[in-house]
């Protein structure tokens, strides 16, 4: 579904991604972790062309992301993305947030879009909040709306960029629950997160990045049981010691 081959990216002379390669198969859940500044967010933003890269190739659903003749909006419509800071549109109601791209990009009628929207809001437990503005919702609720907004496009895969990092601790679980459910339904997911419990529970594979490199790319049990690299060991001991 998502194939990343030898991708390198520079900001000026600073290399943020160093020949990264990995694959995410259909139905697979892959967690990307690593210390901050390791390039993990940059890597998944490259996967739907929100960030450009100078070398290598990323193919999503058979389409090369970096190719100049790729219709990026069309490709992005098939790949859902959830951001650290939710990025709901504050001037629109929850319903309008979900309807917008369904109508403008997929060409659904307002009625079709609203039906889909209400079904998804029900699924994330927020149907009563449909007429509200994002500013009146808690962080956890906003992030669940953001997930529903991405799902409204019937995506083939979902990208999550630290979806719980900006949340108060008591709201993290309501968002993770939605993600776990999604994973169990077989959604293809690439998730940048520090939530190792989530990774342990639903990830098929864990990728560990440090200083722009993919240091470790292993099955979940293998990664947590016996990480091969010293850097991954250190990272895990720091993050799991509580």
């Amino acid at each position, binding site marked *: 579904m998502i194939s990343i081959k030898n991708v390198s990216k520079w900001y000026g002379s600073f290399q943020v991604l160093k020949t990264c390669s990995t694959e995410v198969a259909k139905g697979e859940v892959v967690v990307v972790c690593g210390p901050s500044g390791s390039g993990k967010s940059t890597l998944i933003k490259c996967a739907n062309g929100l960030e450009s890269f100078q070398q290598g190739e990323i193919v999503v659903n058979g389409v090369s992301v970096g190719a100049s003749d790729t219709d990026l*909006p069309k490709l*992005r419509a098939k790949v859902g993305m959830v951001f650290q*800071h939710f*990025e709901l549109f*504050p*001037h629109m109601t929850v319903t309008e947030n979900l309807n*917008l*791209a369904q109508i403008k*990009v997929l060409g659904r009628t307002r009625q079709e879009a609203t039906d889909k929207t209400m079904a998804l809001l029900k699924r994330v437990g927020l149907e009563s909040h449909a007429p509200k503005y994002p500013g009146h919702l808690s962080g956890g609720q906003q992030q669940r709306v953001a997930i529903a907004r991405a799902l409204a496009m019937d995506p083939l895969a979902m990208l999550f960029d630290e979806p719980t990092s900006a949340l108060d601790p008591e709201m993290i679980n309501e968002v993770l629950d939605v993600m776990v459910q999604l994973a169990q339904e077989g959604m293809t997911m690439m998730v940048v997160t520090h939530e190792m419990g989530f990774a342990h529970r639903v990830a098929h594979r864990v990728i560990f990045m440090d200083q722009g490199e993919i240091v470790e790319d292993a099955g979940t049990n293998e990664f947590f049981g016996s990480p091969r690299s010293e850097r991954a060991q250190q990272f895990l001991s720091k993050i799991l010691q509580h």
Partner: protein
Amino acid sequence: MFSGFDFDVIGRSLPYLFREGMAFTLTLTGIAMSGGIVFGTLLAMMRLAKFPPLALAAGAYVNLMRSVPLLLVIFWFYFLVPWIGQWLIGATQPVRVGAFLSSAITFTMFEAAYYCEIMRAGIQSIARGQVSAGYALGLDYWQTMGQIVLPQAFRNMLPVLLTQTIILFQDTSLVYVISATDFLGAAAKIANRDGRLVEMYLFAAAIYFAISVAGSYGVKLMQQRLAVIR
């Protein structure tokens, strides 16, 4: 103190002052505001474009307009617009353009430079993540701008846009250089005809003052309401 004055001249000329003069002033202000905001927003998008020639061209236009006195721009456009019109439609002689159309074009082009800078700040005030979110949903540049960035930028900048419009309202009085009859022009004509300069200019000043103060107060009220909504 006012024994030598005749304030009745105001009452007598009210219909002319408002139906002719103020109508011109308000129509010109309205056209220049809406045209200027639309054109200014396009200029702002050009200035922020990643394509350098576009950004440079828009930047040059804005800087030129903001560096030349409005009076000169009005003057020059009055003489240039007929020639540009001739060139555009390929006529054999300069197109006749009335004082109103000429000033409408001039003020729209001139104010666009100022509205551009306001909208540019507004667009830049929208977090980068909002644009990413639009793109991530499959929206293209125009949809992201039109649905997500500009509505928010416009809302954030509304008080500043309206303040600029109040300045525009006062500046329209400069059309006297091309003998157009705006509110001040109408007042001046009566003043000269009846020899009542002091009365008419006092009255004109009072009206400009009243409308501008009322406008500023309206902006202030709106600012408070917007602050609550956000």
